[in-house]
């Protein structure tokens, strides 16, 4: 059974990674799951400068989901290199840096500064960030911006470049095609869905930023639909995520067209979800007589 997935000229050992923002830089989860067994760690977003993140409270639960408003809280590129790279260097699993910014130039600057690091397998570009040059609309909502950002980042690195799509758009296929046209080596979907909770006792939004990002089982059908549509629209690998809690959910995404997966919110519920999902995928493949991940594709 071959579980590996090729992205550009590099190999992910298995399809089950852990999603950006839900796993820090791996350290915290080291006692709780076998990091070396992960298909990939997608780090918390890194920006050029350190960012404190959004005001609190930052979390609120919803039916079968949660909303987060962490913002891009991170230590910035310099301290990332100093404080996080040594640990990441010690890991045997692929580490994919989630890159964020408010301007095209900021994304580029992060990649320029870290690209020589062998610890980094590739990049995942978070285009759900508001583009300050375009009235705060997220980069990922406009195909023109997405193609431009992708192609300008492609020039800076030989590592695989994954564009992470937001579901908060009219036509996610168009965005995916723009990423592919810009030279993306893969796309990941979905980032969080825009949502909001009102505290009816305080009569104000549950989080100060008013709207936040919905994740967890509630959004799984949205993620599966996105992966299905995107995988029909492009010829690069699609990485599926959104509400995967167990192997059955993971298999849904694979059958819908995903070549790899990320476990996000589920890490909070069971820190070893990724291990269990990988085991479950293997069992499913054995029963189905599948020998490689691509055997999941093309059934409908």
């Amino acid at each position: 059974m071959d579980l590996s997935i090729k992205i550009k000229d590099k190999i992910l050992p298995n399809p089950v990674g852990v999603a950006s923002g839900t796993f820090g830089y791996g350290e915290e989860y080291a006692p709780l799951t076998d990091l070396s067994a992960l298909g990939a760690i997608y780090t918390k977003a890194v920006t050029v400068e350190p960012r404190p993140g959004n005001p609190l409270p930052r979390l609120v639960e919803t039916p079968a989901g949660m909303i987060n408003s962490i913002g891009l809280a991170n230590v910035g590129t310099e301290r990332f290199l100093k404080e996080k790279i040594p640990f990441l260097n010690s890991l045997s699993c692929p580490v994919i840096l989630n890159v964020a910014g408010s301007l095209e130039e900021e994304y580029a600057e992060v990649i320029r500064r870290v690209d020589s690091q062998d610890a980094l397998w590739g990049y995942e570009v978070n285009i759900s960030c508001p583009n300050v040059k375009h009235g705060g609309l997220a980069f990922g909502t406009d195909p023109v911006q997405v193609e431009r950002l992708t192609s300008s980042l492609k020039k800076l690195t030989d590592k695989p470049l994954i564009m992470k799509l937001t579901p908060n758009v009219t036509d996610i296929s168009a965005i995916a095609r723009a990423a592919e046209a810009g030279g993306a080596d893969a796309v990941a979907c979905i980032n969080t869905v825009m949502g909001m909770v009102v505290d009816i006792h305080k009569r104000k939004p549950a989080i100060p930023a008013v709207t936040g990002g919905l994740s967890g089982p509630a959004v799984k059908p949205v993620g599966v639909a996105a992966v299905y549509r995107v995988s029909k629209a492009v010829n690069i690998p699609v990485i599926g995520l959104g509400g995967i809690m167990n192997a059955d959910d993971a298999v849904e995404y694979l059958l819908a067209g995903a070549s790899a997966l990320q476990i996000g919110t589920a890490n909070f519920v069971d820190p070893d979800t990724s291990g269990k999902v990988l085991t479950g995928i293997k069992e499913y493949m054995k029963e189905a007589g599948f020998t490689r991940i691509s055997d999941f594709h093309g059934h409908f």
Partner: protein
Amino acid sequence: MTNFKSEILSQKSIALGYMEMTFRWPEESEKPKPGQFLTIKIQEQPVPLLRRPFALSGFDEEQKSASIIYQVRGTGTKMLAALKAGDPLDVLSPLGNSFSLPAVDETPLLVAGGIGLGPILYFARELDKAGHSPVLIFGCREKSLIPDLPPLTNGRIQFCTDDGSAGFHGSSVDYMNSLSSDETGNAKVYSCGPTGMLKACHDFALSRDLSCETAMEEMMACGVGACMGCVVELAEDQDRKYARVCKDGPVFQSRTIKWT
């Protein structure tokens, strides 16, 4: 820190709306310290989705058991309260930092309100056993909320009620203020409870120039420091704006917190 399957040993009501649950603590697992907490995955279905955090309220090394005291509040705690002895429990613990020990000549003033009782009680018992003379001050609205607690050996427990229906008539901070500066001269304050009470403890400590540690609470997702969800805002003089309750806390020097 381990994620283990435990078993509930007992579950009982200790005050109106408050439960104490005792469960098996695995041999291999690190002993929890007062102030540390755990998270419980309450059920298989995704409502409620997230694990629920509770401070340890006791630990019995011989029996290999630990306990929590919790208030029945919403969906999660209602489900928890419906579990019985013998039921399995999915526990992730010990998490977070812990209260620091007072110096031998310091008198620990331990202030608890509402759901803050657990960690303070655990700490008081440990100090008591170690020969300190802790004063545990527990404030609540009225008599029915006063839990039934075994007395301390060296220290003592002071109940306070807002309506005067039991113990001292007034809040726990009113009680502290009623102590003379002589009595609190070498005190060290520890607090856990509602934010208003924590701030009052901090102000009290500041006014008498005492050190004060406070155990904080924020909505949590991961509980292990990875998601940056559970932050509190730090005072302006700190080197960063926010700290994570689950990893940098839950216990903070009250002076490092931005009280608003």
